[in-house]
């Protein structure tokens, strides 16, 4: 089975130059936790997720793990201040600019392996031979596909 048969084709994307606040609103409206980020040439250059935005709101010296724990600190109140600053930033400043990319004709096994290997990813962006984005495949998509698969189809997966 190939990635393109399992992926979600109905795509909602963000543009690198959009403000974070607008993109967050779109994510909320469509009940999505991540969006692929496209440049002017419609090439996928990153992924923005609620996690990547929160990572920018938490101070870098904490998010980077330099301060392993801050259970000794009270709630200092800077999260809201940082949130108010981050929503006006451009998406390209908060996106994960090294998304997992898989080719549309990649096998399901290879896609699942890429998602779960060392640099864990929850999503992979599926691209065609021209490197244009054609879909998204999540760990959930693979599980759903496996659940609906008939027993005698197993060789295909």
């Amino acid at each position, binding site marked *: 089975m190939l990635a393109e048969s399992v992926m979600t084709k109905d795509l909602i994307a963000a543009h690198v130059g959009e403000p974070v606040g607008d993109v967050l609103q779109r994510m909320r409206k469509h009940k999505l936790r991540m969006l692929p980020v496209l440049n002017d040439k419609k090439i996928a250059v990153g992924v923005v997720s609620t996690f990547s935005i929160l990572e920018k709101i938490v101070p870098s010296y904490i998010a980077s793990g330099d301060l392993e724990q*801050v259970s000794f600190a009270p709630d200092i109140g800077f999260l809201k201040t940082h949130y108010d600053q981050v929503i006006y930033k451009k998406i390209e400043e908060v996106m994960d600019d090294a998304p997992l990319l898989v080719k549309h004709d990649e096998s399901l096994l290879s896609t699942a392996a890429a998602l779960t290997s060392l640099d864990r990813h929850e999503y992979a962006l599926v691209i065609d031979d021209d490197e244009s984005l054609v879909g998204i495949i999540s760990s959930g998509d693979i599980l759903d596909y496996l659940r609906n698969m008939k027993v005698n189809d197993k060789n295909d997966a």
Partner: protein
Amino acid sequence: MHNSAHIIHSSMPFGLDATWVAVSILLIIYAVIMVEKFNRAVLSLLGAGLMILCGVLNQQQAVAGIDFNTIGLLTGMMVIVAISQKTGMFQYVAIKAAKVVKGEPWGILVMLSLVTAVFSALLDNVTTVLLIAPVTLLITDALAVRPYPYLFALILASNIGGTSTLIGDPPNIMIGSAAHLSFYDFLTNLMPIIPVIFIVVITVIWLMFGSDLKTTDEKKELIMQFDEGAAIKDVPLLRKSLFVLFAVISGFTAAHALHLEPATIAMFGAALLLLLQTWGEPLHDKDHAYEAIMAEVEWTTIFFFVGLFIIVTGVEHTGVIGMLAEKTLTLTGGNFAATTAAILWVSAIASALIDNIPFVATMIPLIQSMAPTFGGQEALIPLWWALALGACLGGNGSLIGASANLIVAGFAQRAGHPIVFLSFMKHAFALMILTILISHAYLYLRYLS
């Protein structure tokens, strides 16, 4: 050692001159290290390899040139620090220090600088700033004050503190080992001037930034709500770490009387803490913990030292360093006070601009070969203090002067408050010169007048 030059000439391939080959290897390797495009450990090992491949040294001579006392002391302390830092004691002390001054922004700057200086004296500067800088940023965020003055003070305090002991800064470890100066010698000769330097530097920082550091009572109250107790992650490990640290530092102080080298004490302390750390745990967990700690040892630094010792030994074998020493003595007219001053100032300026470790590695044999002029190794002692003060305090002269400076600059960058190279240097270089003036006066009054 220097009369071996003619022996080397006979074994050189292609009729090359050993002196030129050795000096070229040293200069090329040092120049490429300065460019900072390649890993310095890789470069020093390449240089060391070339010294042997080109026939300047044979392998036996190269290995004999490695100062295993420095290597052992560095590695042992790295293991002890790697375990101790997991306890949260650095964060505990930093928060406690901020609360002692009731959240006053200026008081916090002084206390964090003091904590940094003390930790840098007893442990290593890089680990100290690696652990204190994030807490500092958290505190300045809580106070809503500009972090730059704090980070600036942290850098200076770390290098000043590191100057005061045998184990505070790698140049001191190398000097102590080569000149047979004990932990106690450093305490009685360098430590006395450090508080003076610290107070002067903090006063100047107050003049520079004091009026900027204002906050509200509400924000000070936030600092008082920090719970330093929650920073301690592992109380049993904290007890074991403190016990070993205390034992090791006591051991350093008594090392001379016990006829022990500091490396023996540090390595024994490291082994003891490794054993205590996982006492009572299953073998599999122990092995895992040992491997994790060993992975935290900065092997890059250790191999950098190994390579460097071999490169310097190669150059030393050709007699060039002895020649350079003679030239220096000609320039200073063989005057001891002038030689001391020259070593202090040249070391300070050089260490502000280049890595002070290769610089000190080269200066050590150079100073040693001045012994006949000044009446033996014993008479050289003030020169060693001049080298230590110059090389360690010189690190404050620019952002690239010491590894700790770059670590703090990295934090500042990530936190969105980048430290600009030139604006840092504008203040820091002047302050460094001030600390060298104080050191010069101290050396003159104590050893030369």
